[in-house]
């Protein structure tokens, strides 16, 4: 008989899952602190730090001005000095301002100093289009995957948001943790017992026989929608949520495509030098040639215009079309 007094999982909003992980890690380690715009009394741009300011105070939950370069730079430096900062960058687009600090100092310090200096900073940022225009909509995770020394993760469910954040705040950083504007409204079950999800582990959301669809972040939901439509057309799709982009879990992907024989990669970002081509190239290195196709945003900045935005972004119909074309049926 199970103990009925402690629930095993609790359904909560995406933001609450993040807050849970951060609270646990801030409680466990006094060197974890948060920096960013609206992280304090406001509770986080997406309310993902709700309650933490009241609990831990202004010393550990620090509001910054609109100054991403400085904030990321200070985070990288504080991490090198022995802290574990969580830097919140509300829009992934503005991470660009901190690339020098994050990449040339954060990611490279271990190499430059022969291991004497490391920078375990976590940059948490929100990607994706939601009507806010060309400079507030980007998904640029593929730009970061190639940086030696940088880890990149992207949860698609509240449980993964929780588990990956716990690992991020303990990891050999720097870590870029990417959530998505369109994920915040979606609730999910989160384990009540402290559980971390290791990096480098993808998860199969739907088992299938005819084609493997790999994706991450919000697009996993689009992939699942497409898989449902494809089922009606007699095609069984295996949907893999990569979760971890650097390091990539190619073992899971290769095992899947080894069985299905076909790969479709799906991302909200650009397909040029995207996440998909990296998956496809590494797949080829592992198991040889398999037919594959990539689906992503059209080659244009994502407008806030209500007609142009959906026209630019991948949807289930576009994924279904790509699968039909790839399979030839």
């Amino acid at each position, binding site marked *: 008989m199970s103990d009925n007094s402690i629930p095993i999982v609790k*359904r909560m*909003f*995406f*933001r609450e899952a993040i807050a849970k992980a951060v609270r646990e890690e801030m409680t466990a380690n006094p060197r974890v602190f948060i920096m960013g715009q609206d992280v304090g009394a406001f509770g986080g741009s*997406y*309310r993902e730090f709700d309650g933490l300011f009241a609990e831990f105070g202004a010393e550990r939950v620090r509001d910054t001005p609109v100054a991403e370069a400085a904030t990321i730079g200070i985070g990288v430096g504080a991490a090198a000095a022995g802290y574990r900062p969580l830097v919140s960058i509300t829009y992934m687009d503005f991470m660009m301002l901190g690339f020098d600090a994050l990449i040339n100092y954060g990611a490279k310090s271990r190499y430059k100093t022969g291991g004497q200096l490391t920078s375990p900073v976590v940059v948490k940022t929100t990607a994706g289009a*939601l009507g806010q225009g060309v400079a507030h909509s980007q998904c640029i995770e593929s730009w970061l995957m190639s940086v030696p020394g940088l880890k990149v993760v992207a949860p698609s469910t509240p449980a993964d948001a929780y588990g990956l954040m716990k690992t991020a705040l303990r990891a050999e950083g720097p870590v870029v943790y990417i959530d998505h504007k*369109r994920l*915040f*409204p*979606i*609730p999910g079950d989160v384990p009540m017992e402290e559980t971390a999800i290791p990096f480098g582990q993808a998860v199969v959301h739907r088992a299938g026989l005819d084609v493997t669809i790999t994706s991450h972040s919000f697009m996993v939901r689009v992939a699942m929608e497409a898989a449902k439509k494809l089922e009606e057309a007699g095609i069984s799709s295996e949907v893999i949520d990569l979760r971890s982009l650097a390091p990539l879990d190619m073992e899971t992907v290769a095992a899947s495509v080894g069985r299905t024989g076909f790969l479709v990669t799906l991302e909200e970002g650009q397909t040029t030098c995207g996440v998909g081509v990296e998956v496809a190239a590494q797949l080829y290195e592992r198991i040889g040639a398999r037919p594959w196709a990539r689906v992503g945003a059209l080659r244009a900045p994502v407008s806030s215009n209500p007609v142009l935005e959906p026209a630019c972004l991948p949807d289930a119909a576009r994924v279904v079309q790509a699968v039909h074309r790839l399979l030839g049926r």
Partner: protein
Amino acid sequence: MIYQLTVPAAVPGVEEIRILEWHKEPGAAIETGDLIVELETHKAVIEVRAGQAGVLRQVLAQAGDWRTIGLPVALFSSDASEELPSDAAGASAMLVEFEVT
């Protein structure tokens, strides 16, 4: 006449809400403008107020429960003595106003 209160599509992009707090109990008489229940979305709290008078008869979801947009969470009747149906599916929609706070 029996009325059902369904979860309003108050905030764009929201498919599911969590019941935050009931402000009326079964048996309570409701006037137009009365605060009936508060619902929680990922972003904000929705105050659901009566758009018509009636009697709250049955609460179908408790504080902390999750409900999808469009699903019923309470039953009302114009008269306290009306018999409640076993299945509220055919009931008219209760008129409400909601405020996103």
